[in-house]
């Protein structure tokens, strides 16, 4: 089975973020970057499928040269191959643009695959768009936010979370699947894997070589501002014995906050 995994380099969730209102952007200096945690589940799932059923795992990333680090991490985890689709645009918050690049790269250069694995969402931009969009552009079925995946021959079944329960999506390959926490426990890289990954020459495909038009590469969002959320006004600490505090709280929720 030929499995492709799509990974993104994202700011660590622990990062304190700073905003630059003049440039309508989040300041990148000082942030530490990691492989998107949801993509780790996707890589792990690909490796497990390969171990059980044979095949190859290739990892793709759209981004600048700085994204090579996350591709190397995937190689160190055990991926067979990695490709950087080099794009200087930075964060555009536009899922369609990324999906167009991915879909075009596959059609033009890597058309042989059985399964496309994604994370459910790239942290930071928090879009949750690229998997469904790529599926549509390539005419593939999709299963998103998946916590359980089964592939048998050319048939797949995935369990995904919905409000108050879960649903099973049945599909035929090739297909798009995006990973949610719970799908698996990602492995750590081995030292041997890390050493070997360092030596790999990762192919770089410039976005400009894919034959996308300027219009297709233009971001579809016109950013008008980046701001911090309004500060919550300081809360009130209810003192006194538990019974007293509980009574005061119930009263406050009804008559002051008017939410009960």
């Amino acid at each position, binding site marked *: 089975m030929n499995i492709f995994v799509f990974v993104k380099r994202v*700011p660590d*969730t*622990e990062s304190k*973020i700073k905003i630059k209102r003049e440039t309508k952007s*989040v300041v990148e200096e000082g942030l530490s970057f990691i492989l998107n945690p949801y993509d780790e589940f996707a890589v792990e799932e690909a490796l497990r499928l390969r171990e059980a059923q044979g095949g190859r795992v290739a990892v793709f990333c759209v981004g600048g040269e700085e994204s090579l680090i996350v591709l190397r991490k995937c190689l160190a985890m055990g991926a067979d191959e990695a490709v950087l689709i080099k794009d200087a645009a930075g964060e555009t*918050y536009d899922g*369609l643009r990324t*999906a167009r690049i991915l879909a075009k790269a596959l059609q033009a250069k890597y058309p042989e695959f059985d399964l496309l694995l994604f994370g459910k969402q790239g942290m*930071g931009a*928090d*879009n949750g*768009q*690229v*998997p*469904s969009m*790529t*599926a*549509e552009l390539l005419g593939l*079925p*999709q299963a*998103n936010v998946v916590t359980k995946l089964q592939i048998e021959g050319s048939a797949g079944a995935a369990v*995904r*979370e*919905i409000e*108050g*329960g*879960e649903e*099973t*999506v*049945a*599909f*035929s390959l090739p*297909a798009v699947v995006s990973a949610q*926490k719970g799908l698996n426990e990602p492995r750590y890289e081995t030292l041997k894997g890390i050493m070997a990954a360092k030596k790999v020459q990762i192919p770089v495909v410039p976005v400009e070589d894919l034959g996308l038009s300027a219009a297709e590469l233009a971001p*579809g*969002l*016109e*950013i*008008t*501002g980046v*701001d*911090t*959320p309004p500060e*919550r006004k300081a*809360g*009130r*600490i209810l*003192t006194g014995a*538990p*019974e007293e*505090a*509980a*009574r005061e*709280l*119930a009263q*406050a*929720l009804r008559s002051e*906050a008017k*939410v*009960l």
Partner: protein
Amino acid sequence: MILVYIEAREGKIKKASLEALSEARRRADELNLEIGGALLGSGLEAAAAEVFARGAHKAFLLEGEALDAYSAQAEAAALEELVKDARPEAVFFSATARGKDLAPRLAARLGVSLASDCTRLEVKDGRIEYTRPIFAGKALLSFRLKSAPQIASLRPNVFPLLDTGRKDGEVVKRAAAVRPDQVRGRVTEVRSGKGGALDVTEAEVIFSGGRGMKGPENFALLEELSGAVPRSAVGASRSAVDSGWIDHHHQVGQTGKTVSPNVYFAFGISGAIQHLAGMSSSKVIVAVNKDPEAPIFKAADYGIVGDLFQVIPPLKEELKKLLEE
């Protein structure tokens, strides 16, 4: 027209869809547009009345064999047909599990960008400005969409409901052209959680427990609290979930669910940034923690510094009394 995707389960429209419809109506009034509701599947005639009450002028009922079980592929195709005919200026979804699955698929099909999981919509100079949280709520991104139609999904529990008191409008029935043999993926089974309990994303009140709950058996205390308050649910921090005390469906936070209930109770939760990411848009936050320095108190509107095991029993009684009044 602003077209709103209406999600129904067993013939009943989801509240989140009505919220999206209500917000569409408010923005459409500013833009002088009509509202249409799109209902996909069969047996949804009765649901149309509710769509009118929340502000729609038209209800489009799209039917066809390919739409009987949910399939993103089939629904995107059916919606594209409708969009090509009705030519809406915008299409709104609610950012439910379904909306998050389908909205990007339709957007790609129409070749337009998407505003996902928005928490604020404003009309400025005749155009909609979308605002959505990024960096797990640590920042807000505002933007306009350059393409048409504009497609957006709206975060549940954020936009207030509107009741227009209207009862009727125009019902337009359409047979979708998409055929089952053109669809390679569909939902084959839906299982609801135990006892049909309300999901945290749909609850108006959430009682969440963290590592301070000490063990799985104590989550029964939160179940009892939830039993006393209508439309409430039990939530949890990742520590509680990872310890195996409660199922991960209850997890709130960056890798769990994003919630915005009217009241969020955090019992024995320290308030790590990844937890706050999932609940900081709650209308009112209550923290009960024995550590006065716990970061959760910085996010809380009301705090009780103390042992949660001493606070929960009287709180349950007080809430019961209050709700019986």
